[in-house]
């Protein structure tokens, strides 16, 4: 085979490889469409506000709550322990690098349901599996947790546990968000210290 023919064959082989390269990379979905649809139709990608409230009051270190709203909205009030990654920032950058935080669960929330579910679809499409959504967003948080009240004469043990958790979460939310920004970070440090002292442990 002469040189030209060999060169042609090499180019063709390269072309073949290019044609078969997966549509991957940071900028496009890598999960198959039908698999992604199946994941997104699964209700196990949601956490309720009560479940998130329990994560907060137990300070579950395997969970990261992510606020997708604008920074000014986050500063006004946010769920204790959450970090702010505005939705437009999440899709602008590589979500994989932002969410590689070693957490078992990253739970998105926004004011309603749109942004958090867009974020879920994008991250799951990029094969980032440990992402979830707080169903109903901050509107549901206010409706269920902040406006929680018990009416009636009797309460079951289960209702009592739920009401207690809601009350603790509401207290935490109010206390933390009432602090000036400079003191919010210290709020959690103080909580850790208080809990250790109550346990009788050493520093």
């Amino acid at each position: 085979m002469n040189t030209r023919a060999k060169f042609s064959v090499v180019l063709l082989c390269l072309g073949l490889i290019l044609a078969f390269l997966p549509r991957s990379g940071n900028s496009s979905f890598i999960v198959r469409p039908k698999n992604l649809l199946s994941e997104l139709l699964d209700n196990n990608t949601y956490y309720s506000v009560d479940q998130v409230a329990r994560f907060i009051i137990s300070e579950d270190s395997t969970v990261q709550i992510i606020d997708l709203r604008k920074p000014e909205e986050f500063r006004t009030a946010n769920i204790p322990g959450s970090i702010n990654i505005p939705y437009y920032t999440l899709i602008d950058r590589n979500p994989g690098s932002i969410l590689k935080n070693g957490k078992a669960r990253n739970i998105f929330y926004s004011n309603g349901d749109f942004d958090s579910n867009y974020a879920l679809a994008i991250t799951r499409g990029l094969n980032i599996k440990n992402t979830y959504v707080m169903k109903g967003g901050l509107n549901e948080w206010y409706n269920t947790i902040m406006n929680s009240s018990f009416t009636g004469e009797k309460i079951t043990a289960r209702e009592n546990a739920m009401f207690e958790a809601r009350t603790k979460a509401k207290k935490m939310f109010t206390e933390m968000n009432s602090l000036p920004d400079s003191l919010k970070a210290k709020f959690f440090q103080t909580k850790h210290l208080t809990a250790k002292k109550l346990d009788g442990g050493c520093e």
Partner: protein
Amino acid sequence: MEIIKNNKVVIVLVVILLVLVIIRSTSVNHFQSDAKRWAEPSVSQSNIITLENVKLLTGKKLIILDKNSSSPGEITGDVQNIPADSVLSKIYISLIKNHNGPVLIFSMDQGLSARIWMILSQMGCQSVYIYTKTSDNELLKYKFRPDTIMH
């Protein structure tokens, strides 16, 4: 003829490559590259449509519905419903991509509408909208009242 005989291996490889590229390019069931570009309408919320705007749309409307929702009665005219869990079947995805009019997604669970919209947008479907009765889903309906009492 001599040239073809001498280069038949190369010609066969070119034809195979061409066929593979054509198959890959014309396949309807794949995601587009540049996820950020196809997610843009969700940032500007230009993918959300309310009843007032739906009334202005002409032509046949395709409505993607989840199994727990019924077709919104206020949308009249030539309407075809598509079940959400089958939206990626060959028949429906071709129907959506070739449809010469608006495709609406409606669900009582607006989060589900958002998810389906993102999948379809990432597959290159451009005239897909989330139909919602109110346009204020991402508006915070409550005001936080700080605790001003010193503890």
